[in-house]
C-alpha cells in the first residue's frame, strides 16, 4: 500500500497549473542562408516630426499589479472626414493611482503634409478609462465612418456626425448589456459584420474575462501569477472567461442582442482578443474568427440562418498540432501564397512560434509557419500583425510588433526585455519567408512595448505605412520610403446593396498570371483597424482585373483602367473609377 500510495501522491501532486500565458518553450528554428536580394523599402519612425508626441498612458510604468494594466493597443487608420487622407485614432488608458491629464483616446487629423493635428477634444472623443480595441464601420450607412471602442467597462459606439465630431450612442443603440454583468467585463476585440446579408452592419464584441479586482490575486499569489518563476500579474489562467456578444443591427440606429439565439454566447471558455470577420470558407456568408489567449481560438461558422457553429478545432485553427492552446493575440488575413484562398496569421506569446495557417479551401487550415521559415524567431511576445506588401512585388510580406506584458520581469529575465523590436519577414514566393532587420530601415531597430499596429497609405504615395501603439510612450508612425519600379493598385469599395463601407468584401486581383485576395476588415492586427482601402502590389504588371465578392454573396468583375492609382468600386456599377 505504501509504495503504491507514494507513487500516487507524486502523480496527484503534478499540478496542472500553467503559467500565466500559454508558452511552449520553443526555441528558434535554424535560419536559412539569406537570399541576398535587395530590399527596396525603408521604414522610418516619423512620429515626432509628424506631431504624434502625446504618450499613450496605460497602467503603471513599473510594479504592475493587474493584467488589465498591460493589454490594450487599439489603433485605427481611417478617413473620418472623407478628404481622402488617413487619420489616426488611438485608444487610451488610465492608471489605478490616478490618471494624468494626457490619459485619453486620441484622434489625429491628417494635415496632408506629413503632419497631424490632435483634434481629440474638438471631435468629442476625450475619454479616460481602460480602453482596449477599436473597430471601424459605417453602422448607419450614412457614408461616414463610425468607431466602436471596447473597454474594461462600458463600450462606446462613436457615431460620426459628419461635421468633425462624434457622439457616443452606445447606450441608446442598445449596446450596453442590461442588466449589468455581475462582474465588470473586460471587453477586447470587436468587429462590424453583416452576418445576415441585410446590408446593415451587425456587431460582434469579444470578451477577455469578467475581471473584478476584488477577485483577482496579487502578483505571485499562486502559480498563475508567475512567469518563469518571477511574480507577475495574475491571469489569464485562473480568471473567469467571459461570453462573446453578437448584436443585430435593426437598421434604425439600434441593435438587438442576439448572442444567445445565434449560438455565439455558447462559447464561454476562451479569453478573446482580436476579432476578424470574413467569408473564410467562400460560401458567401461572413464567419467570425476570434484569437484567444491561452485557450482555444474560436471560429464561428455562419450557418446562413442567423446562427453560428463554433468549429475552430475541426478547421485546424483552435490548437497547435500537439493539441495545446496558444496565446492568440493578433490576426492578419491575406493570401501569402497567391492561390486566391484566404490565409491567416496569428501572433503568440514568447517561446512559441507564430501561426501561419494556410487556407486549404472550404475553410480548412494547416499551420505551415515552420515550413515557411517563420519559426526562426520565438524570443518575442507578438501582438499586432499584418500582411502588407511593403515592396509592392505582389507577394504579401509579414510585419508584426512585439513587447513584453510585464515591465518588471527583465531584471530577473534579461532574455525577455520589456521593450522589443518589430519583426519583418519578406515573402520570397513559393511559400517561403526570410527575416529582415536593419536593412529595412531604422524603425526595425527601435524597441517598444508595442501592441496594436494599423496599416495604410498615410501619405498617399503608393506604399503601405503603419502606426503603432506603444505602451506608456508616444505612438510610432512608420513611413515606408519605397524605391522600386513595382506597380500597385488601391481600391476603395462602396456598397449599395451591401453595407456602405463594404466591410467583409473580398477582392481578388489577377495580374501577370497570378492572383491575390484581400478582405475589407473592420478589425484585425491586434484589436486595431487598418485602412478600408485595399492595397495590392503588382510587381511588374501594368494591368490587372478585379473580382469583388460583396458581403451579400454576389460576385462582380471590374476592369482596371490603369495601375498606380486609387480606384473606386461601387457595387453594381461594374466600372472602376479613379
Amino acid at each position, binding site marked *: 500500500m505504501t509504495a503504491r500510495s507514494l507513487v500516487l*501522491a507524486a502523480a496527484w501532486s*503534478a499540478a496542472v497549473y500553467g503559467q500565466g500565458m500559454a508558452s511552449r518553450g520553443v526555441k528558434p528554428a535554424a535560419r536559412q542562408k539569406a537570399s541576398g536580394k535587395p530590399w527596396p523599402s525603408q521604414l522610418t519612425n516619423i512620429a515626432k516630426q509628424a506631431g504624434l508626441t502625446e504618450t499613450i498612458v496605460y497602467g503603471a510604468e513599473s510594479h504592475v499589479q493587474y493584467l488589465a494594466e498591460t493589454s490594450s493597443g487599439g489603433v485605427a487608420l481611417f478617413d473620418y472626414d472623407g478628404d481622402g487622407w488617413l487619420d489616426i485614432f488611438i485608444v487610451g488608458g488610465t492608471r489605478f493611482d490616478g490618471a494624468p491629464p494626457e490619459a485619453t483616446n486620441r484622434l489625429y487629423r491628417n494635415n496632408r503634409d506629413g503632419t497631424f493635428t490632435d483634434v481629440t477634444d474638438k471631435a468629442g472623443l476625450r475619454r479616460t478609462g481602460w480602453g482596449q480595441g477599436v473597430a471601424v464601420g459605417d453602422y448607419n450607412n450614412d457614408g461616414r465612418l463610425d468607431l466602436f471602442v471596447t473597454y474594461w467597462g462600458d463600450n462606446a459606439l462613436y457615431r460620426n456626425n459628419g461635421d468633425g465630431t462624434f457622439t457616443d450612442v452606445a447606450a441608446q443603440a442598445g449596446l450596453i448589456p442590461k442588466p449589468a454583468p455581475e462582474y465588470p467585463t473586460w471587453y477586447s476585440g470587436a468587429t462590424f459584420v453583416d452576418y445576415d446579408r441585410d446590408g446593415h452592419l451587425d456587431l460582434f464584441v469579444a470578451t477577455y474575462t469578467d475581471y473584478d479586482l476584488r477577485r483577482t490575486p496579487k502578483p505571485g499569489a499562486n502559480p498563475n501569477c508567475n512567469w518563469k518563476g518571477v511574480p507577475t500579474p495574475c491571469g489569464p489562467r*485562473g480568471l473567469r472567461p467571459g461570453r462573446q456578444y453578437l448584436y443585430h443591427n435593426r437598421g434604425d440606429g439600434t441593435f438587438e442582442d442576439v448572442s444567445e439565439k445565434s449560438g455565439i454566447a455558447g462559447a464561454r471558455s*476562451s479569453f478573446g482578443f482580436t476579432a476578424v470577420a470574413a467569408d473564410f470558407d467562400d460560401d458567401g456568408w461572413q464567419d467570425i474568427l476570434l484569437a484567444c489567449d491561452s485557450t482555444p481560438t474560436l471560429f464561428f461558422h455562419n450557418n446562413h440562418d442567423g446562427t453560428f457553429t463554433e468549429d475552430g478545432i475541426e478547421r485546424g485553427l483552435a490548437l497547435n498540432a500537439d493539441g495545446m492552446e496558444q496565446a492568440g493575440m493578433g490576426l492578419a488575413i491575406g493570401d501569402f501564397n497567391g492561390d486566391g484562398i484566404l490565409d491567416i496569421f496569428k501572433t503568440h506569446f514568447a517561446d512559441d512560434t507564430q501561426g501561419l495557417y494556410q487556407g486549404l479551401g472550404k475553410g480548412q487550415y494547416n499551420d505551415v509557419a515552420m515550413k515557411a521559415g517563420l519559426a526562426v524567431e520565438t524570443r518575442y511576445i507578438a501582438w499586432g500583425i499584418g500582411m502588407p506588401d511593403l515592396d509592392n512585388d505582389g507577394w504579401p510580406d509579414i510585419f508584426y510588433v512585439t513587447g513584453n506584458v510585464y515591465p518588471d520581469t527583465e531584471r530577473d529575465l534579461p532574455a525577455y526585455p520589456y521593450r522589443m523590436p518589430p519583426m519583418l519577414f519578406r515573402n520570397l514566393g513559393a511559400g517561403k519567408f526570410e527575416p529582415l532587420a536593419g536593412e529595412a530601415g531604422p524603425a526595425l531597430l527601435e524597441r517598444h512595448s508595442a501592441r496594436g499596429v494599423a496599416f495604410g497609405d498615410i501619405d498617399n504615395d503608393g506604399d503601405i505605412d503603419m502606426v503603432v501603439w506603444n505602451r506608456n510612450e508616444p505612438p510610432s508612425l512608420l513611413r515606408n520610403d519605397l524605391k522600386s519600379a513595382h506597380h500597385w493598385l488601391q481600391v476603395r469599395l462602396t456598397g449599395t446593396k451591401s453595407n456602405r463601407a463594404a466591410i467583409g468584401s473580398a477582392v481578388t486581383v489577377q495580374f501577370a498570371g497570378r492572383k491575390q485576395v484581400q478582405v475589407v476588415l473592420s478589425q484585425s492586427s491586434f484589436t486595431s483597424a487598418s485602412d478600408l482601402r485595399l492595397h495590392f502590389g503588382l510587381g511588374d504588371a501594368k494591368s490587372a482585373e478585379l473580382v469583388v465578392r460583396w458581403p451579400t454573396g454576389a460576385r462582380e468583375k471590374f476592369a482596371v483602367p490603369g495601375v498606380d492609382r486609387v480606384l473606386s468600386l461601387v457595387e453594381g456599377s461594374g466600372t472602376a473609377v479613379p
Partner: protein
Amino acid sequence: MLGELLVAVMLAAVQNSLDSGRQALQAGDLSRAEQLFRQYLSENPNSAEALSNLGAICARREQFSEAVAFYERALKADPKLAPVHFNMAIALGQLKAYDKAAEHLRTFLQSYPKEARARQLLGLALMETGDLRGALAELEKSYQLNPKDGSILYALAQANARAGDADRAAELLRQSQTNPAQGKLIEGLIEYRRGRFAEAKTLFQEVLRLNPDAVPAITALGRLELLDHNDAEAIRLLQRALQLNPSDAESTYQLGVLYDRNGRPAEGVKMLRRAIGLRANYPDPHYQLGRIALDREDLRTALAELEEARRMLPNQEAIRLALGRTYQALGRDAEAKAEFAEVRRLKAAVTERDRQRVESDLLMKP
C-alpha cells in the same frame, strides 16, 4: 459418499485457488494470480475478495479503467469492504476522477480514521478539485498522524505554498533535510511541476552532485533539456539514464521522441516500440507513433496507435485531437466530430478548474 467427497475435494481446490492466488499476487506473478482468481470467480461469481484482487492486478498493470470495473463489482458484492474503497480511490485518482476518488476515501476513512495515507490522498484529491481549504485540513490531519512521512510533509508544504503561506511551506520543507539528495529531488520535482524549470534544473544538478548515478534526476534533467530543445544534451542524459537502468520506460520513450525529431525516424520508432514493451499501458509512445504515422499519412497505423492511446488515457486532449484528425482524414466524420467535441469539453474543463482553484484560494483570504 463418493459424491460428497468429490464435492469436498472440489471445494478445497477452489478455496486453494483463492489462497494460491493471494500467494501468486504477493510474489508478483500477476498472470498466475489472475488465472487463479478467475478460476475462483467462476465458482464464486460474487466473491468480493476475488474481484478486489483482480482489480488490484489490473491496477498494478496500470489498467485503471478495468481496475475500477472490478472494484465496482467487489463493492456491489460487499459495500462494507473498506480497503476496496481505498484501492478504488487510487485507481480513480490515476484516471483523474478526483471527485469520485475523494468520495471513496471519505468512506474508507469512516472505518480507518487514523490512516494517514488516506488522509493525504484525500487532501491531494481535494487540491485537484479546487477545494484548497479542505485539502489543507486533510493534509494537516495526515501530518499530525504521521509527521515523519516525507511525502505527506511535501504535500502539506505544497498546499501551504498554494494557499500563500510560504513561511509554513518553508518550515515544513526544512524538517525534511534528513536525506539531502532525496529532499532536493522532491523539491526539484515540485518546481518542475509548477513550471519553474530553471529552479528545477538547479535542484536536479545539485542532486547529481550528491549522487551522480541518481537516475530520476538524470531523467528529469534530460526531460528539461528536451523541453528546452537542447536535443543533443537531452539525448546524452537520457542515454546515460538508460545505461544505468535499461528498463527505464520513460527514458526510452523520450529518446524515441528525440531521435524522431532529430532525423533518426527509424531509431525513434524502434525506441517508442521498445518503451511499449517495457511498460504495459503506456499511452505516450502510442500517441507519438500515431502522430508520426499521421504526419506520414499512414492512416491505418495512426488509427491503431491513437485508438490504443485513447483507450489508456481517455481524458488527454492531444490524443483525442490527433485521433479526430485521423478520422477526419479517413472521412469518418461522425467519429471525428465526437473526438473534437471531447477535446472542446476537456479544454473547457481545464479553464474552469483553474478558475475554481483561484476562487478557492481567494476564499481562503480573510
